[in-house]
């Protein structure tokens, strides 16, 4: 039965009464430009402007307008949200669904049926709720601290406060609020674009801003003024430099000019890390700006072997006997805040050092790579052999074909390919073309039969995008991997239409389909996995091609996979 706040029942007590004029409805998430005086509406308008375009220039313009006009606290929170500093979830989604259904006067099952069709929980809630009866001029900052404070309250009070909040917001504000409360807030803007917009709004140079935005801050520990306008990055000893990221070299290096201007290294298959030694302490940052210091305690001894005032960019690798262990070994240590002794002994890590960002307390990012490399070599060579740091050796080559041959050896050396760095280049920030390139080995591929399909979420709601693939073992198809990406939208629509017509069985949201279509699955690595029926697990599997030309019978076999495992596992 519907909840206490359901609308009055109509004649015969069957259907909810619907107002005859129906002028109160405001259907979709739509925006109004005038948001003066209502900071949450202003933020919702920003969200809408970003959502309405795929053009980078328009996204940057929307953001820089916002960074000029919004209250400073809200600007800071927006920067925090766009750099992945989201508030934690304080209400379970189960409760939110129940409360929304009750407030909308619909049974929970009806809400649950609507959710997968909409494809997004925050949006489903925003759409089913009746229009707000009150207005509020509270800020984004206010609502976020409100969401955070919910965790102190008992459930009844949480519910009262969430319903009260819903009742004060328009559709888009509600949607954004729901995204914040469920901890899943994303705006489709990279940190790079955000930094560019912030630079336009403040006049502070982009690389400088990128550096200020790094590290361990939150809107509760700083202010917009302190972080963006007045901040001196060196005051914070743990603050990392922005990582420089390489672009993939799709066509090979032949157009890069004189090989003598370039240095090459192996592309290591570990975790990118920035090691900071300052003020008697050490900090290890991931590329995702996560502090990983405690996960790799064996690196703490580097404080004794390297001088303070040193910042090294490198790769954390599981390593024994002068060779990397398979990524699977390192994987066991990812996601563990503390490491048991056994694992420390089984999969000890080192830092494979490849660049030097700070030397004797000075930021050396602007001097050429060749000079930084010399300084780095001197530092690392001075450390004793037991120190868990190794230089990433340069791969000598005098012409591009020689480098191509070196690249072919990558898998044998447990590397993913080769890296190219221009000898006279500074250490830049973010992903920028020109000075650093990664030239990965070609992926491994296998032709597999599509056997299960499931619908996606969000932008991919109502499309079948999540697939399970199988290879032959005799006359049986053995599932061995899932893949979600690699097809165009048009191909996803086409396969979706086919799945609907060729479903053999349904298991909840999963459909077993006719084993008819063959896809080329590309992947970066293969390892043994007792948890999978096939006995193997793939790294980064994706659909490289839809093999319309290949009948299911001609797909690969489990034996083919086992041979790959033997060769590359």
């Amino acid at each position, binding site marked *: 039965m519907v909840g206490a706040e359901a609308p009055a029942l*109509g*004649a*015969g*007590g*069957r*259907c*909810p009464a*619907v107002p*005859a004029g*129906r*002028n109160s*409805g*405001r*259907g*979709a*998430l*739509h925006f109004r430009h005038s948001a003066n005086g209502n900071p949450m509406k202003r933020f919702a308008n920003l969200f809408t402007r970003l*959502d*309405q*375009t*795929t053009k980078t220039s328009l996204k940057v313009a929307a953001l820089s307008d916002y960074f000029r006009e919004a209250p400073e606290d809200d600007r800071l929170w927006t920067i925090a949200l766009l750099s992945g500093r989201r508030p934690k979830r304080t209400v379970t989604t189960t409760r939110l669904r129940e409360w929304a259904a009750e407030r*909308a006067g*619909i*049974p929970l*099952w*009806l*809400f649950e*049926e*609507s959710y997968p*069709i*909409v*494809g*997004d929980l925050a*949006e*489903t809630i925003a*759409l*089913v709720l009746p229009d707000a009866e009150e207005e509020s001029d509270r800020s984004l900052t206010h609502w976020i601290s409100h969401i955070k404070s919910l965790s102190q309250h008992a459930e009844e009070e949480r519910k009262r406060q969430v319903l009260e909040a819903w009742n004060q917001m328009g559709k888009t504000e509600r949607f954004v609020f729901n995204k914040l409360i469920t901890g899943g807030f994303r705006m489709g803007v990279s940190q790079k674009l955000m930094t560019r917009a912030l630079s336009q709004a403040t006049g502070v140079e982009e690389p400088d801003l990128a550096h200020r935005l790094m590290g361990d801050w939150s809107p509760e520990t700083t202010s917009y003024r302190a972080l963006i306008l007045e901040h001196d990055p060196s005051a914070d000893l743990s603050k990392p430099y922005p990582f420089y990221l390489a672009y993939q070299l799709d066509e090979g290096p032949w157009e890069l000019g004189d090989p003598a201007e370039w240095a090459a290294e192996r592309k290591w298959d570990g975790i990118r890390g920035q090691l900071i030694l300052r003020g008697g302490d050490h900090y290890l940052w991931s590329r995702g700006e996560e502090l990983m210091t405690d996960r790799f305690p064996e690196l703490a001894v580097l404080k004794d072997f390297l001088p303070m005032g040193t910042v090294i960019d490198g790769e954390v690798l599981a390593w024994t006997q002068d060779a990397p262990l398979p990524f699977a070994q390192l994987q066991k240590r990812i996601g563990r805040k503390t490491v048991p002794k056994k694992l420390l002994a089984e999969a000890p890590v080192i830092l494979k050092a490849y660049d030097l960002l700070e030397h004797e307390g000075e930021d050396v990012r602007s001097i050429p790579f060749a000079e930084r490399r010399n300084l780095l070599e001197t530092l690392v060579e001075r450390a004793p052999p037991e120190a868990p740091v190794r230089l990433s050796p340069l791969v000598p080559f005098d012409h591009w074909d020689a480098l191509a041959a070196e690249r072919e050896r990558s898998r044998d050396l447990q590397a993913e390919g080769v890296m190219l760095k221009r000898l006279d280049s500074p250490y830049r920030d973010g992903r920028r073309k020109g000075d650093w390139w990664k030239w990965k080995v070609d992926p491994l591929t296998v032709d597999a039969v599509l056997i299960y399909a499931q619908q996606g979420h*969000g*932008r*991919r*709601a*109502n*499309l079948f995008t999540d697939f399970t693939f199988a290879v032959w073992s005799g006359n049986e198809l053995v599932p061995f991997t899932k893949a979600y990406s690699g097809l165009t*939208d048009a191909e996803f*629509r086409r396969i*979706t*239409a086919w799945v*609907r017509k060729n479903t053999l069985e349904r298991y909840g949201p999963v459909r077993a389909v006719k084993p008819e279509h063959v896809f080329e699955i590309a992947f970066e690595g293969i390892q043994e996995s007792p948890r999978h029926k096939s006995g193997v697990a793939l790294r980064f599997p994706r659909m490289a091609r839809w093999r319309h030309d290949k009948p299911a019978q001609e797909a690969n076999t489990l034996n083919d996979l086992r041979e790959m495992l033997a060769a590359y596992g």
Partner: protein
Amino acid sequence: MTEPLLTFTDRGICCPKGGFHIDPWRPVDRALVTHGHADHARPGHRRYLATRAAAPGMRHRLGDIDVETVEYGEVREIGGVRVSYHPAGHVPGSAQIRVEHRGEVWVVSGDYKVEPDGLSEPFEPLRCHAFISECTFGLPVFKWQPQAEVASEINGWWAKNKAEGRVSVLGAYALGKAQRILAAVDPDIGPILTHGAVENTNEVLRAQGVALPDTIRVTPELDAKAHPGALVLATPSALGTPWMRRFGPASTGFASGWMALRGVRRRRAADRGFVMSDHADWEGLNAAIRDTGAERVFVTHGYTSIFCRWLSEQGFDAQVVETAWEGESLDTADEGEVEG
């Protein structure tokens, strides 16, 4: 128990007593047609019966067919069964079909919309014992804004594009939606150009005396750039095709009920989505069904099983009717050429 007044066959809805079918999808002798859209008015029937307002559009689409016309509210005896057509508010000329025999009344809704749109004959609630209702948007997430609000959004978008030197290309279904937009927007903002498929329908409606603002047909000879800041009404399938190149810098929009869903809006890759539907929303469906006073409700076209369960819980004797036509589902909404 005698045979029901209307039955559901593999040709569509059938009235055995009256010897006719309603919106049949396979050829029959006598087809009563609610409106001219392709999933309701099919080719190949021997005789058609439609409203006077719907007939020209049907002839335009189906060619030389044998159509007899009726006025709204006019009662016909067919095989001893009393038949009448009543406005459905879906598109100009669209009807619900009321069938009565010995005091038992059934109504086939066809497609319908309860909010007046300023162009279609407004929806007329009918009392009946059994109601066959579409439920294209039969989920509580679909709640439309009043048309005036959507029209002002479109006007705002158009005026802004014009001020910034862009043409506004709006995708909308060629029969019904496009004309509804024409009637709702502010023609003083700028010139209005039309895709051929839209203009063909405009001509049919103008010939029937429907007042529409002036429009300019886009032809290969037309210098599209001579109409800066125009609103271009196009079929959804024309968006993103080479046909659009002639207009130069353009912002694209799409008008459909499906635009209520962010995922669909983003997949369509139009710059703007306007939530404007020719179908009833959740509240509209519930109100319309309640107002019929019917005990038995058959649901078709849309989220039928979900909507049927909802109606059953509300105390109706509700059933799902399968149809050969998916109608305007989310799947086809992605393909472009749909109403909705």
